């Protein structure tokens, strides 16, 4: 019998010039942080990549002041057309330096190079390109605060805190609309994935973006808290856990600070017996194993119509045996490293919980690298709504399989969660898709597809998955004054 083991096809990392240490990006320059520097590691190898400065409350204060000065002095009064031109520049530079960003993202995050290359970085550039065009057309966006064709007004200084799962893409989701609307930003990347944000700071310099328009402060939760609590910050945009989202909502209660929160999810991916089964299998795999399942909208609960359960699970297992786990820099890798030892421990714990609860655990045979943080693509069958693995967000490559009998039961189970970020529906029956889409309490419904993203398409959740939308015309709402008042 022939064999067709793909030889290693590693992407070269020569395109990335890592510095031994990185400072904070404040007022257009890299400056030292006052806190204790921390190390960011490659989760696929545990190799230290760089020392990164930790921003203290005083550093955050400096960043906010720089952002305020830039807002008052330059950005808030610049014409939309000119703001747009800066954003177009940034979009182009991201395209030109795309390989560098992709490689750096994969090194720091552990995601497969094919995803950072084909998804994260191109989408990030697309977000800047899309929002660049909005900058001088906001009066046409039909935003709440701008009646009678008045030009919507920016909010001021925006504090943005982003997660480690899509470091560069989340930066783009946050920074592009904020800048397009005339705000200035203080952004904190996640402590395990700060490097592409710091490379983005260099892009800002290369684009001659006025100093202080974008400020990037690195650090952990304390730094994020300093941003949230800073009285000079007019608005918070946060993507991360529901737990932290609630802390932020509490923290800004009673103030006039506004917030948009993109939080957790426990999406149902619902497969009916008449689904296009081969594409459904692909959609299930993409839904939960894309980006190692480190996706807030991941289709982590598979709801299968009971009549096709066995067949679908068999097909799914056969497909998962084809998933290539390993070196994220290999162009053929489908599933990369878990982002951190902390997250790996969480995934391992929840998988243990699933077994203890009596669900059947399955994973294909795959050799995992000896160093780094790894978890195989894992399937739990025999899962009930009452199982913790069906209720709690695992944020890893772990799929729970449940069954249903009728559309109404599928809807009831899908909605039976405090979350409401996304859902998937697979059926070849058009009217059922539209009925399901109506019934599902989720901000994004993917019908016969999953995990699609686009700058023009609003993204965000119902219920405890947060509030506000990112992307599209709707996403602009979060960055203009709702009452149209002057800043």
């Amino acid at each position, binding site marked *: 019998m*022939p064999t067709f083991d793909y030889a290693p096809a590693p992407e070269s990392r020569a395109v990335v010039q890592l510095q031994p240490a990185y400072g904070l990006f404040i007022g257009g320059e890299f400056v030292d942080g006052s806190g204790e520097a921390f190390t960011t590691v490659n989760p696929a190898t545990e190799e230290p990549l760089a020392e990164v400065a930790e921003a203290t409350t005083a550093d955050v204060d400096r960043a906010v002041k720089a952002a305020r000065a830039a807002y008052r002095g330059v950005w808030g009064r610049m014409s939309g057309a000119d703001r747009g031109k800066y954003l177009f520049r940034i979009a182009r530079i991201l395209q030109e330096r795309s390989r560098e960003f992709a490689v750096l993202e994969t090194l720091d995050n552990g995601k497969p190079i094919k995803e950072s290359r084909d998804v994260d970085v191109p989408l990030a550039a697309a977000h800047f390109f899309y929002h660049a065009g909005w900058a001088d057309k906001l009066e046409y966006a039909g935003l709440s605060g701008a009646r009678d064709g008045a030009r919507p007004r920016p909010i001021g200084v925006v504090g943005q805190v982003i997660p480690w799962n899509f470091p560069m893409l989340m930066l783009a989701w946050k920074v592009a609309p904020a800048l397009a609307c005339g705000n200035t930003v203080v952004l904190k990347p996640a402590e395990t994935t700060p490097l592409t944000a710091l490379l983005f700071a260099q892009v800002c310099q290369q684009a001659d973006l006025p100093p202080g328009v974008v400020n990037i402060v690195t650090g952990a939760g304390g730094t994020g808290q300093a941003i949230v609590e800073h009285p000079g910050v007019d608005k918070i945009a946060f993507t991360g856990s529901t737990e932290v989202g609630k802390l932020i909502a509490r923290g800004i209660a009673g103030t006039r600070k506004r917030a948009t929160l993109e939080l957790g999810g426990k999406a149902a991916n619902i497969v009916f017996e008449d689904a296009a089964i081969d*594409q459904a299998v692909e959609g299930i795999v993409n839904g939960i194993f894309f980006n190692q399942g480190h996706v807030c909208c991941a289709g982590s609960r598979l709801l299968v119509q009971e009549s096709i359960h066995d067949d679908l699970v068999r097909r799914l297992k056969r497909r998962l045996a084809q998933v290539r786990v390993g070196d994220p820099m290999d162009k053929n890798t489908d599933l990369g490293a878990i982002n951190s030892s902390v997250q790996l421990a969480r995934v391992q714990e929840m998988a243990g919980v699933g077994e203890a609860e009596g669900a059947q655990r399955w994973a294909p045979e795959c050799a995992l690298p000896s160093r780094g943080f790894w978890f195989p693509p894992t399937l739990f069958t025999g899962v009930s709504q009452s199982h913790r693995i069906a209720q709690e967000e695992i944020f890893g490559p772990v799929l729970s399989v449940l069954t249903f009998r009728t559309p109404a039961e599928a809807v009831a189970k899908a909605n039976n969660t405090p979350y409401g970020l996304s859902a998937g529906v697979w059926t070849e029956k058009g009217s059922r898709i539209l009925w399901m889409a109506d019934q599902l309490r989720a901000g994004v419904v993917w019908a*016969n597809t999953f995990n699609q993203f686009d700058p023009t398409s609003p993204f965000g959740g119902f219920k405890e998955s947060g509030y506000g939308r990112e992307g599209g015309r709707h996403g602009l709402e979060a960055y203009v004054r709702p009452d149209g008042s002057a800043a």
Partner: protein
Amino acid sequence: MSAQHVDVDATRRARDLLGVSRLTNLALTRWTHGLPGVDQVGLEARAGALGTRSIKAASKAWAIDTAISMIDLTTLEGADTAGKVRGLATRALNPDPSDPSTPSPAAVCVYGDMVATARETLGDSAIRVAAVATAFPSGRASMPVKLLDTRDALAAGADEIDMVIDRGAFLAGRYLEVFDQVRAVKDACTRADGSRARLKVIMETGELVTHDNVRRASWLCMLAGADFIKTSTGKISPAATLPVTLVMLEAVRDWRELTGEMVGVKPAGGIRTTKDAVTFLVAVHEVAGPDWLDNHWFRFGASSLLGDLILQRQRIRIGAYSGPDYVAEDAPSIY
């Protein structure tokens, strides 16, 4: 022909699989229409993802040789002459004069009247002669003509028959007619001595248009006894696209699960580069499985592909890019 020469009575098996006492058009319609639908966008996304596989080094060398060995080196022109067919067959015997270790293609594929010429040139080599038959490429002829066409090619020494289905009948929903024709041609593929030519059934997917049709036609042809399901005549564009081939690979995979039998797949037309060929092999590997990575179960119907595979093979051997002047070509364009 006597029943003892037929391994499987296709009609009886079809009745068993469909659970009917009499095979009717209605029964076949219900069965084919009961197959899961195919979502075009999802299918194309999967094909695109397979296309991003990066095949390097030893895997690539293996893939190139395997791809060469899977080619049905084809000439199907009205202008074909004995000279051209001899040249093609000679090239099949010796695809790269500068490197005798180069594998030979699986077969030479010609019109029925050229079978004897090809057979003669190929002598007792392992390279098979495939003949297109059944009023190729349109299939617009009566059944007796199609059967005679088949027997004629067989008598001239064809090892394999590439038939076309009646796309008109399929699109009009006359599935039983398509089934009966494939079954009858399959019967005609048995020689007097009881040996059999393998039957490739061309669905002409470019004329079926939708992937749902391709899936239904694939199952219908397998049900009727096809040894291979084949995309195209090469006369219609689009021909062998990767998404269409994926649907067919899924079909043979699922058919094997249902019946235990393997059916071959032959994309034909439009596959011209090594990169394309390797991507198809990746699809075979990841969708149907490694059992199909053999020229008994997978073929490329192609004419110009061999040249590019040879170029890439030379590139690996000499460590520098080669050029067309270093690849022997027996069938250049006459225009």
